């Protein structure tokens, strides 16, 4: 996260780290149920084998796993069948964990939006991740506040890329706070009523975040996929085992 700050441990209990040996952290992910997490499809390009991945929860410092952290291996990766790597459209995938997480105050799922619940333009939400901070890769989880930007306005920043309804834009024209390489798959969450946080976006793509080209970040629009996510989880939980 560019322009963010180091997060307090346990502040974002749904944030997880998708890791593969020997590289370690490769992408972010988001816990949405005891056995299910979301990330973006492009994290699995060339590595679709579930066996090579593990998922870390309840972690703040990647270098010092705490007593509150939990690790799970991946049972199944469900890529969106329309994922298009050339235009980074339908960039979403579901991860089934090998076993349920133990819910604690450090490891807890985020709420999913209903299919008519949208992130309203000009509202402020948060992004988190262990991605690039501009001059280095951080060990500690970073957080940044971003503003939701209407799609038409967002398209004006990306003259040569198509912004589709499967995407959500957030950030600032000046790029002061933005997600960056390594944040992919991590959450964009907005606070709803009663202090509950809902997942509206997954970090997907943007301009080269620490270059001269600025603009907002582009996130997978979770609302668009709400129905697909629910049906996949239902089918794999009740019908295929």
């Amino acid at each position, binding site marked *: 996260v560019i322009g963010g700050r180091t997060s307090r441990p*346990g502040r974002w209990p*749904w944030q997880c780290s998708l890791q593969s040996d020997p590289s370690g952290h*490769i992408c972010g992910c988001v816990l949405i149920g005891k056995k299910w997490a979301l990330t973006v499809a492009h994290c699995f390009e060339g*590595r679709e084998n579930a066996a090579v991945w593990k998922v870390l929860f309840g972690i703040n410092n990647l270098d010092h796993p705490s007593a509150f952290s939990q690790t799970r291996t991946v049972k199944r990766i469900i890529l969106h069948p329309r994922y298009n790597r050339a235009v980074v459209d339908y960039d979403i995938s579901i991860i089934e964990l090998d076993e349920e997480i133990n819910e604690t105050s450090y490891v807890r799922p985020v709420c999913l939006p209903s299919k008519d619940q949208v992130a309203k333009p000009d509202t402020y939400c948060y992004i988190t991740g262990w991605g690039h901070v501009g001059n280095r890769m951080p060990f500690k989880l970073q957080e940044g506040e971003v503003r939701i930007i209407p799609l038409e306005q967002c398209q004006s920043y990306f003259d*040569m890329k*198509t912004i589709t309804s499967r995407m959500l834009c957030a950030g600032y024209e000046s790029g002061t706070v933005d997600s960056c390489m390594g944040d992919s798959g991590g959450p964009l969450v907005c606070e709803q009523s009663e202090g509950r946080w809902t997942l509206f976006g997954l970090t997907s793509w*943007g301009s080269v975040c620490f270059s001269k*080209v600025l603009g907002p970040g582009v996130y997978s629009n979770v609302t668009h996929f709400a129905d697909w996510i*629910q049906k996949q989880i239902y089918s794999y939980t009740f019908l295929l085992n």
Partner: protein
Amino acid sequence: CVPSTSCSEPCSGVSNCVTHNQTDCSQCELINLELCMNLPYNYTTFPNYLGHRTQKEASLSWESSLFPALVQTNCYKYLMFFACTILVPKCDPEKNQQIPPCRSLCEHSKERCESVLGVVGLQWPEDTYCTQFPEDNNGNKTCLMPDQDVKECSPSHFRCRSGRCILTSRRCDGQSDCEDDSDEKNCGCTERGLFECPSSKVCIKHMMICDGFPDCPGNFDEKNCSFCKENEMVCGNHECVHRNQWCDGHKDCKDSSDEWGCVTLSKSTNPESLLIVHKSTADYHVCADDWEEELSWMACRQIGLGGPPVTEIVKEYNQSHRRKWLHLVPNWKRKNISTLQAALVRGQPCRSKSRVSLLCNKEDCGRRPAARMNKR
């Protein structure tokens, strides 16, 4: 990995070695960079002439935004061809060898377009020193020059009559993007080889019709896709399945849609709601005979809610009113069922004349721990 002796999957695009060095990775790969899909070659190799290590890095680079924007100024007919030869350099699949653009192509691009960039205060990309590229061919194909018929705009761009390239999504959007308005002419879907969504002007590709994903407003592209018999139901993917197989606990549609939404709770002002199971295209109440708590858990989980459930057995006083009931199959525990609907059958008498009512809890989500307080 160099210099250590650890082993890693080579050339995956992700650097696994501690020193982040991956050597001998210059293998040809298919071009997937959207901007450069119209090249007279299909294979590329990395790193490219701008120092990008992968196509993804190239696609998100400053240069991949800069060059297409510059094309719009009409500064040089072959600018985009040159840009692509350095963004996704040609790879000779036989020799696994990178083929650079010719020096004159680089020089012409720079001569004609660098000054245009200067007007808006931008600089010609670094790392594009033309002297690094070989002099023009003398019949040998050691460097690339454009053919006469090279297209200036990539497939995801529309070429204005004036020569400018604009993003395809800007064509026919009601706003003129070409100076000659050519992007707002001939806008019918059919004229563009696309399908027009009924009752809207939205155009979609023909391959998107009846593919199981709604693209038109009102889901019109996913309607009238099947011709099922009277005793059949339509699956989400447009297969036809016999109505008796709908919500029977077995997946009959390939996309499982025959088993979706089979268990619900009736809308009620009371905390508890009657359990309703959809089976063979009709809604049924569930007879409370031999009901067990385990089934209440299963019902709540299927609905997408959690527990612990509160189960209530509701007596049916109105005996004259004929209810539709489902009844538990004998020995359902031995049948290794995974859904409630698989444990229920029609046509059995309900001895208790009572139905099942449930209160499920919403699974907790989205809560952050409260900040710890410290006395100061």
